């Protein structure tokens, strides 16, 4: 059997107050474990000083985190993976979010959490990087959003038609 080389085990977005804003699990963790992991990690990461390095060793794995305004972006990787690259991936994801929301803030991610997930799913699959071009991701998301918009319009026009017909 070969060792499973999973690049990213999970992605976690935590606010400075310790509220969870987004979680994505690429390795199987039960609901109970997830809660525990989040609690444990927010305890460690939120208390670290600003000048320290962006890596935390944790349960034989490594958590790479970076703070953007009030949000901590965390990704958990194997102990011998390239931490510096993960920092770039985090930044890559943030830039895509930024481009999509237009200078993204925590509130955007709260009220449009599903959008954040869609963007993440265009960036990573199976814990691996999917696309290195921010433009491509933006294009794919925009195309899918358009599909949804069109469907909505169609639905509302049908509702209108029905409403008018049954008046």
């Amino acid at each position, binding site marked *: 059997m070969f*060792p499973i080389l999973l690049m990213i085990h999970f992605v976690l977005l935590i606010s400075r107050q310790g509220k969870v804003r987004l979680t994505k699990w690429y390795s199987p963790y039960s609901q109970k474990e997830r809660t525990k992991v989040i609690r444990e990690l927010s305890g460690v990461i939120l208390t670290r000083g600003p000048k*320290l390095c962006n890596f935390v060793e944790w349960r034989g794995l490594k958590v790479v985190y970076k703070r953007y305004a009030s949000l901590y972006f965390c990704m958990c990787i194997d102990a011998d993976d*390239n931490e510096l690259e993960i920092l770039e991936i985090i930044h890559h994801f943030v830039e895509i979010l930024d481009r999509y929301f237009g200078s993204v803030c925590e509130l955007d991610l709260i009220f449009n*959490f599903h959008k954040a*997930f869609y963007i993440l799913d265009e960036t990573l699959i199976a814990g691996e*990087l*999917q696309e290195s071009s921010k433009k491509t991701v933006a294009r794919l998301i925009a195309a899918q959003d358009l599909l949804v918009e069109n469907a909505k319009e169609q639905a509302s026009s049908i509702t209108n038609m029905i409403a008018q017909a049954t008046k």
Partner: protein
Amino acid sequence: MVSCRDMIRAIRACKTAAEERAVVRKECAAIRAAVSENDQDYRHRNLAKLMFIHMLGYPTHFGQMECLKLIASSGFPEKRIGYLGLMLLLDERQEVLMLVTNSLKQDLNHSNQYIVGLALCALGNICSAEMARDLAPEVERLLQNSNPNIRKKAALCSIRIIRKVPDLAENFMKPAGAFLGEKHHGVLITGVQLCMDLCKASSEALEYLRKHTKDLVRVLKNVITSGYTPEYDISGITDPFLQIRVLRLLRILGQGDADASDVMSDILAQVATSTESNKNAGNAILYECVETIMSIEATGGLRVLAINILGRFLSNRDNNIRYVALNMLMKAITVDGQAVQRHRTTILECVKDSDASIRKRALELLFLLVNDSNVKPLTKELIEYLEVCDPEFKGDLSAKICSIVEKFSPDKLWYIDQMLKVLSEAGNFVKDEVWHALIVVISNATDLQGYTVRSLYKAFQTSSNQETLVRVAVWCIGEYGDLLVNNIGELDGEEPLTVTESDAVDVLEAALKRPSFDITTRAMALVALLKLSSRFPPCSKRIKDIIIQQKGSLVLELQQRSIEFSSVIHKHENIKSTLVERMPVLDEAAFVGKRAVSSAATLSSEKSNRKSSSGIPLNLPNGVSKPAAAPLVDLLDLSSDNAPTPSASTGDFLHDLLGVDLMQNSPIQGMSQPTTTGTDVLLDLLSIGTPPVQNNSSPKLPSSPQVKILPQLSPLGVASPKLSNTSGSVKATIQDTKPTSNAPPVIDLLGDLGSNSSMAEENVPEYPSIVGFQSSSLKIMFSFSKQPGQPQVTHVQATFTNLSSNEYTHFIFQAAVPKFVMLRLDPASGNVLPANGGSITQHLTLDNKQHRQKALAMRIRVAYKVDNQDMLEQGQVNNFPPGL
């Protein structure tokens, strides 16, 4: 019903957790109602709400089926939210997930690329092994789709499939190879990633993909020389993500293959020299490049280049880069230890960094760099730092210093000096085995005992709050108090010290009375006082008073010791001096050996036999956690392994046992027995009555080799069963014990002990060993033995042998027997079976109540894990030899 946005607003407006729970409860109730009404219009809105509620940590299992329904609907918006919910609310271990397989299959064949994309993404993120098998052909086909968006998603999806079902790897080999010729970066990145997983999963794929080394080199070269491309540019570097992945795949291909390594060495040199190192992206590439150079069959020049990059990293001001450098240097040690040694001083500085992650890495690296020539200066630096470092780091640091000192100490004097320094600075942080080991060393260093006890006395004056230091000091003053006051064995250059007898007693009294110390320390102080009472006759009155004060102690252990010791002082003046004689030299080799064994957590099977024969719960499956054996107990317990079963004809078993043990043990233990003859029954009994030493290194009684036998004797009242915590107390109750009344249980005890002893005394029939169970992966052998006088009881030694090439972990053997048989399972010797013939043993005792009427039979069940997959095997054993 409110919109999702309004619900989020309502939740955010909550001031307390209780308010939030109320809002969530209300929403969940509404959603449940909608679910049971099979409401279609708001299904996607409800699921969106559920996802938010799920993120807050509330249970949302009732929404799982809603995901499936949305996925099965035809529109893109419904599918999009449905798949998102599926990935969020479910994971691969839920049965419900299987129900989605059919929808997935349809969507993978959909004409809309975005719907195919959704299905691939969901499959790639959460598919289980069964789904992987079912849908692999679809994904394989999609690898050749004309749309790059679908191709790249299919590639990552394939990775998940291969991770779940490695057998499928070969199917993906050819399409993956084709990916390496792609132009689209997303496809290239995912393709390279797929190749890496294939290489790990199958050696055939590795060989196949090695032929593409040149393609990869070309890809890398194109990226490096492409010039500015805004779409992929990150701080002046073109697509670092692609570069890093190609370097990583090159590492796998070059490992152990000189030709492939040769093909890539030029481009590696180019990356290593031309990549900008002032931004994180560049350093990430350099990191990967160095790793690759270290792993492949690189030339010396290339390696120098790599190590130099690490040197630059190490002197970088950015904490991240330094952290990474320390990590990589750890790997580089095996490649070029000398080069890493050059950075020793910088690494030492990192140990003192304010960042815990860096400190920890640096300490581990430094630990690997210690050798005979630099141990002294390094230890000095580390101990100096121990004095000033954060309390939370003291545990780690002192543990490392201790192991460095133990491993490399050039002489005992230096060892003792360093350990005393560590104990004075961080005595509250060190583990028990550290000071146990120190005591063993002191006990062996006859010429240093005087110096040591004086140093300890001095250290106590300044660091009396470090409990382990106090313990060692107390033990040594008890043993070598006379050396302390008479300045015996003074070393050259040792500062003269004047200590009166009453000063020494002061130390013990302080240790005894300090309320923050635990029972072990205080009990040790009591024993030391008893010892001093005969060594310092002028102080014996005072000592007696101190001991008597503890009569009123609320701690049972102290109270009992106090009463017993007072009784020894009052009534048994004639034997006291023998009782409190100095401890025999502790056997260093046995201690080290036993410690290694106990730290590996594998207890020998004989030991577990004895353990369960002392009445600890029966029918233990193996893998049960056993109480950790304190090293010193082990040190002293050699005797019962070697004690032959007394012949059945001997009348006085107890006496026999004692006699035998006394003769046996002296040579084995290397302990001089102060008891000169076997006639002094009282002393013999005392030696038996020593309770087992646990968590405590103080075997203060002159002879305690028989400790291990105690558990069997304890029910007899020889020793109070309550006293298991600490050792060394002399039992006043012993006088009441009549050896004769003990005879029958003692026979039992010997019966249990005898499984590994010679059985020549009686005609015990021999039984052939059998293969109880055999499958392609596992063999179980049973060998049998019986005790004389107990024909109905069969002792079975089961040996489990791993026939496969995978390691088994969490191995548990369970057995069931007919009603007329009593089965007792002792803990197994371990719960891990190494691959290819690794084995463990377990002892079973079968008591056949219908001996000679019914034959034995057994049903067995074996559970273990291979690579974290649960395995289960069962069988029946009917081939027991007749007569058991």
